């Protein structure tokens, strides 16, 4: 873990009075290992290490400051910077319903997160309509309807109509019935499934969402970059929700996804219950990744 390697890092600089190319290079080997253990993607870790190296060597030598402490500060600062803004707010429509599209790989937590988001927004006094647009997973529509009943939030569902059409009709209904928020639950899909990626892009085209959120599992490994990049290319992503952070995965996927899409992580899932949605705190995430 990095806090252990932070100790080692500091030790490497004992007796040294400044940061040099060589001693920084050595120290950063430990950091790279820790990042990879934390599931940060290889290329993202490499770029991060380079940034830290440049920042560390570019530092003016301050008299009396231990170089070990200096490099630890550079690492934490760079990581927090890379993790993106704290509690980035949800976009709201200027007029008419705010449309939020949830997308992502199979099993990431989209349906549950729709419920969590609906719960949160309802508590803020908004009138939410959830849309059951996953027409392929057995009982996916039922799943969202159960959440809707538990939350007393309306759910729009239609049989025999393709997902883009269901979503378009739901937005029309929202306008007619004065819902100010529409949350679109979509089927899990592989980023390499062209037909399904085209389908979700069509959902976005038909509904002009104000928010397109990539729902990503915090335990995702190296593949996080590949899938996030593909979703970012096919959809107008506006943010990311990282789920299952109540586990003990280090969550390096957070850094990878942010680095490759540039989109802010807006929320994190902290459990299965519908009140387990928190805003994102980059400092906390950085500390978690660093171990």
């Amino acid at each position, binding site marked *: 873990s990095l806090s252990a390697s932070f100790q080692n890092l500091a030790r490497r600089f004992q007796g040294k009075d400044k940061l040099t190319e060589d001693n920084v290079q050595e120290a950063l080997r430990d950091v790279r*290992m820790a990042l*990879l*253990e*934390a*599931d940060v993607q*290889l290329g993202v870790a490499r770029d991060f290490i380079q940034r830290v190296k440049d920042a560390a060597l570019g530092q003016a030598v301050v008299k009396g400051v231990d170089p070990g402490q200096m490099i630890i500060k550079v690492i934490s600062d760079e990581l927090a910077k890379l993790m993106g803004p704290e509690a980035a707010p949800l976009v709201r429509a200027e007029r008419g319903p705010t449309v939020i599209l949830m997308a992502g*790989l*199979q*099993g*990431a*937590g989209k349906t549950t997160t729709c419920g969590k988001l609906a719960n949160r927004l309802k508590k803020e006094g908004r009138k939410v309509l959830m849309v059951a647009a996953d027409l*392929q*997973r*057995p*009982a*996916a529509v*039922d*799943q969202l*309807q*159960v*959440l809707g009943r*538990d939350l007393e939030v309306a759910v729009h569902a239609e049989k025999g109509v393709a997902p883009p059409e269901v979503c378009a009709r739901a937005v029309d209904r929202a306008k007619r019935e004065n819902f100010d928020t529409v949350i679109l639950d979509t089927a899990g899909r*592989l*980023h*390499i499934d062209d037909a399904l990626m085209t389908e979700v892009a069509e959902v976005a085209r038909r509904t002009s969402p104000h928010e397109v959120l990539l729902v990503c*599992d915090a*335990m*995702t*490994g*190296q*593949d*996080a970059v*590949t*899938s996030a990049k593909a979703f970012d290319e096919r959809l107008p992503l506006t943010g990311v929700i990282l789920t*299952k952070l*109540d*586990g*003990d*995965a*280090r969550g*390096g*996927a957070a850094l990878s996804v942010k680095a490759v899409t540039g989109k802010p992580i807006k929320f994190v899932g902290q459990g*299965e219950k519908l009140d387990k949605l928190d805003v994102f705190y980059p400092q906390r995430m950085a500390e978690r990744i660093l171990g």
Partner: protein
Amino acid sequence: VLPFGRKLDEKLIEEMEETLLSADLGPKTAVKLMDQVRLAFKEKRITTTDECYAFLKSWLKDLMRDDGAKLRRAESGPTVILVAGVNGAGKTTSIAKLAHRLSRGGASVILAAADTFRAAAVDQLALWSERIGCRIIRQPTGADPAAVAFDAAEAAVARKADFLVVDTAGRLHTQANLMKELEKIKRVIEKRIPGAPHEVILVLDATCGQNAITQAQEFGKILPVTGLFLTKLDGTAKGGAVIGIRDQVKVPVKFIGLGEKPEDIEDFDAEAFVEGLFG
């Protein structure tokens, strides 16, 4: 992919290490492997990229090949398969695949919907049981999962079923109370059918990183895990974390999931899997 027939050097060795890292082998396993390559290179036992590939592939195939990778059978009475794993890994869908394959093979299969927690979890498995044509034992959401498991064990014995496959709720190994619940489900099955569960399958998502190793360790502490079901290998993730698991926890991969349909299941093939890591 490294150029073939090239003289090996440290730079190419590093590129090979990156290939392993990108496949989710994790730095511990990747470095351990590549240090062996570096030693062999230093001792001139391998000198070209081809030899490096051959060295790695044979090491990995030996590790991943396992004679225990067949499905266990009860000596008599129903064979009970208990399925567990973290949330969203693919347990319910994988059970449908197993049930489909077993019933296509002529066996009678009963499914136990022991996920009594998640919204529509029972409905999801019930729909699968309908499509596949096998019996399901269920109780309403909110019931005690151990009670469902017990009922199902009774039914499997009474009906002389060949297989009983028990679905459980997703849970994180960090949730002590849920791990206790899982242990209770196993005990209840054991009491009703001595020797059961004969097979305990941990379902792992191929997109999962190093946490998969922790999952195998922690679930392995409370359940006698006999095999892994590695799902979503039809994606771009390589599932290399199972190598770390095989190395540290010794559990074999028995099945892989290659899609969302009942037929999207295959027996684990070490050769194909290792080749895929370098593909």
